[in-house]
């Protein structure tokens, strides 16, 4: 014999609520509730994956240091790095030296925050860096060096022409320029600059190389095509 809900109404403390519950069971979950559940999952998925992607690709104050147009993942390559840095490293496909041996600074914009593009000319100027060796290299947005007839892809501490006061000036341009010319190639595309600094001489207590923000070069946009 099947027990019916009404059999319990006299003994159960929640008895007054039962008629409402029975109505619910008979009509099934409302459409509104179902919509709420679906929306909750979609919002959670979007928020969860979106925030994870942002913090892994772009970084956050926990993982990256930012100085003007330059940003650097502080613990990249470090075996005791946080999970965001490790995830960033894995998806970058790079094999960087840990920050006690080298520091890497990336710039995808000029000093005013405008994206670097090959149709514009840029003047990059800085003071010598306190390190064993450094190099300023130009890439497309995929991280590939840019084809050019003079086969010039970077300037390093040994080869960059310096002025009498010790400063160096690199011109990022499509066509040949005097002093240090870094060719930006014939294609119209976004550009990325990487400043790699091997053997920084100033270190903090943990041995991480310190590069003063003021010693990073300024990137000033000149004429555009």
């Amino acid at each position, binding site marked *: 014999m099947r027990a019916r809900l009404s059999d319990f109404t006299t003994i159960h403390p929640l008895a007054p609520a039962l008629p409402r519950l029975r109505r619910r069971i008979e009509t099934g979950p409302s459409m509104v*509730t179902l919509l*709420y*559940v679906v*929306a*909750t*999952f979609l*919002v*959670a*998925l*979007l*928020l*969860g*994956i979106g*925030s*994870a*992607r942002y*913090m*892994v690709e772009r970084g956050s104050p926990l993982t990256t240091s930012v100085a003007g147009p330059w940003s650097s993942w502080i613990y990249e*390559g*470090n*075996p005791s*790095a946080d*999970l*965001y840095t*490790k*995830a960033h*490293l*894995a*998806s*970058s*496909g*790079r*094999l*960087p*030296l*840990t920050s*006690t*041996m080298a520091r890497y600074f990336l710039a995808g914009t000029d000093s005013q925050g405008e994206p670097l593009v090959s149709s514009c000319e840029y003047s990059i100027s800085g003071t010598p860096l306190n390190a*064993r*060796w450094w*190099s300023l*290299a130009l*890439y497309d947005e*995929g*991280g*590939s*060096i*840019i*084809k050019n007839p003079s*086969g010039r*892809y*970077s300037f*390093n501490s*040994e*080869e960059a022409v310096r002025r009498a006061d010790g400063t160096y000036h690199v011109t990022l341009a499509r066509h040949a320029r005097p002093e240090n010319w870094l060719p930006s190639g014939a294609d119209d595309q976004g550009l*990325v600059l*990487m400043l*790699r600094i*091997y*053997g920084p001489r100033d270190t903090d207590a943990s041995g991480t190389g310190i590069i003063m923000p003021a010693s990073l070069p300024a990137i000033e946009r000149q004429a555009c095509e």
Partner: protein
Amino acid sequence: MRVRIPGLFVLLAVVLAGLIHIAAVLALPLLAPKKAYARLVPLGHANTMIQIPATAPGSEIMPMMAPDVRYAFCRFDLTDGPVRLRAAVPDDLWMIAFYTPTGDNFYTIAGADMRRGQIDLVIARADQAVAEAGVDAPEEADDVVVVNSPETDGIAMIRAPLAGPSHGKRAEEALKATYCGAKSR
């Protein structure tokens, strides 16, 4: 007191988003298809020194490689015992960096720190005996640096930064003369 239903769902969405966020960050290193290690493995066998050709537009092994650094690497596999790495280091700028397959740079030697420009080292897991009777001459053993690898596999990457465009050939020849392989040689 009743919790209003939209409020409950907002709370649920935030908690769920947090869990998904953590799961995504944890899963990314495991799922990333183009990790540096996966890019280097197809270039050759384990326990041998492999030179990476000078960086050329469009044919880079890894993104953002330095155009003014020459690279050579040894993918070591310690299954059959420790692996030896030897190099005559021509200048102070060279660096030999050791990585786990996930890219942890667990040890690095800078050229400036090497004695007499010669580096002779043995890569071994912590549980592997390095000194074997009759293999290492006693006087040689003093100079051998032992690098303890946390994992059985890994990468030893030599970087030779160039002082100028004309230095490429010389660096490539010096890298060619380096050795990585069975410990007994």
